[in-house]
């Protein structure tokens, strides 16, 4: 990781110095060892500094996706000129980047996209659940993660403390990148089927399903973190904020009313969701929102042929396309469970 970070710094600094790009989208250290945040660097010095908070970092906690920041980072100025930005993209981030290109939220010429090797991002919650409290530092070495707290040191197998979205990683290919640092597209950790969670719910009885979702969704506090992190949710003005849309936000409503928000949001991104998993990752209430989006992906794959948003930006998304012989909506009646 240190090696990769070095290569990233060198490359980005070179691009900034030569003026090929005017900003670099990367990560910088947060307050703790595990809360890196997205950062925009405009000078090589800033980027390479190694003081407390400064400087570009890249490790197991660089999980935040930077793709969506490109929208604002490449916005035209008053003269109508758009700045060019270098962005570091993990494989799954590159799909979201591609999707933004497809929907013309970002213009390809304004971006220099650098893919960076990913070996799965770490989940601080999982580390905590394993007993590590008051964490001081986290070191990654090979297949293990060494955590030292103020009281004790721990070593965990890397595979056990990966983010949920990485456990069900969809692959390590890079899309639409100008270059790639590091590499290797072999997933070397124990990966679970990404639809396993969806299938588990599908196998429940309708009553169980309903109760499951009521339990999950009732925790929602409508903080909008899911929406803000989502690379597809990039409307200029969200329908939930628009008083003329008829579905504008109703704060403090009955708890289960919130599921309208999540169903509508899931439907809005259906056929467009790149399955990046940011929604689940950022949810402060740990609602498994990705299970909603993956349900649509699974149904789309099964009914209309496999489709991966961001794979090919020329391809029509499933909801703007059709076939004469498409399944009738009545197919759902044939599925097991309930009436």
């Amino acid at each position: 990781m240190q090696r990769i970070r070095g290569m990233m710094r060198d490359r980005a600094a070179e691009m900034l110095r030569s003026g090929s790009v005017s900003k670099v989208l990367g990560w910088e250290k947060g307050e703790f060892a595990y809360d890196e945040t997205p950062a925009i660097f405009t000078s090589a010095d800033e980027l390479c500094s190694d003081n407390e908070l400064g400087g570009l970092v890249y490790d197991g906690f660089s999980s935040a996706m930077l793709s969506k920041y490109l929208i604002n980072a490449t916005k035209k100025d008053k003269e109508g000129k758009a700045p060019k930005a270098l962005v570091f993209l993990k494989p799954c981030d590159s799909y979201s980047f591609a999707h933004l290109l497809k929907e013309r939220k970002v213009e390809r010429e304004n971006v220099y996209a650098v893919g960076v090797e990913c070996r799965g991002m770490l989940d601080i919650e999982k580390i905590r659940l394993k007993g590590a409290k008051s964490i001081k530092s986290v070191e990654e070495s090979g297949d293990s993660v060494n955590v030292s707290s103020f009281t004790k040191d721990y070593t965990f197998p890397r595979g056990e403390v990966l983010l949920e979205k990485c456990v069900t990683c969809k692959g390590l290919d890079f899309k639409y990148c100008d270059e790639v640092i590091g590499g290797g597209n072999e997933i070397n950790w124990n990966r679970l089927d990404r639809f396993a969670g969806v299938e588990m719910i599908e196998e429940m009885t309708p009553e169980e399903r309903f109760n499951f979702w009521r339990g999950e969704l009732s925790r929602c506090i409508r903080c909008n973190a899911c929406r803000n992190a989502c690379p597809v949710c990039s409307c200029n003005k969200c329908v939930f904020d628009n008083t003329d849309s008829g579905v504008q936000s109703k704060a403090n409503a009955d708890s289960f009313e919130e599921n309208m928000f999540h169903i509508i949001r899931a439907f809005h991104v259906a056929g467009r969701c790149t399955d990046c998993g940011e929604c689940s990752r950022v949810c402060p209430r740990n609602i498994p929102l990705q299970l909603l989006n993956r349900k649509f992906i699974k149904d789309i794959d099964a009914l209309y042929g496999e489709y991966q948003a961001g794979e090919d930006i020329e391809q029509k998304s499933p909801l703007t396309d059709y076939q004469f012989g498409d399944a009738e909506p009545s197919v759902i009646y044939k599925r097991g469970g309930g009436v």
Partner: protein
Amino acid sequence: MPIDEKGTFRPKIVAFCCNWCSYAGADLAGSSRLNYPADIKIIRVPCSCRVNPLFMLRAFQRGADGVIMCGCHPGDCHYTSGNYFARRRMTLLFGMLDYLGIEKGRTRVEWVSAAEGQKFAGTMNQFAETVKSLGECRRIEDLRCKESVG
């Protein structure tokens, strides 16, 4: 639970019908005096592709017990392709509602041409029967809305 004098449950059912085929089919059912329950109220839309899944959710949220959408048969859309898009949208929506534990019988799509008054009435009778047997839909309803309106 809305119950009439005779003590039977009266569901609220919203039907979205496209102007060119299904609405005309409903008119034909009417002029042929084919009976179906008064619980069904039709909303006219230009094409099934105008029906936003949001409208269906809205109906449930406001207390509907069943929602049905009717359009031209695939291949016969007045606007060539509208019902194909609608078909995909509704298929995915219904799959999602099922996934959330909403009974499948509360949602339905049926293709009814302007000539199919008989089919229209038959479909509506059948659908109303199914919804009736499922009883009141409390699940997705936004209780707060109901109280504030009234």
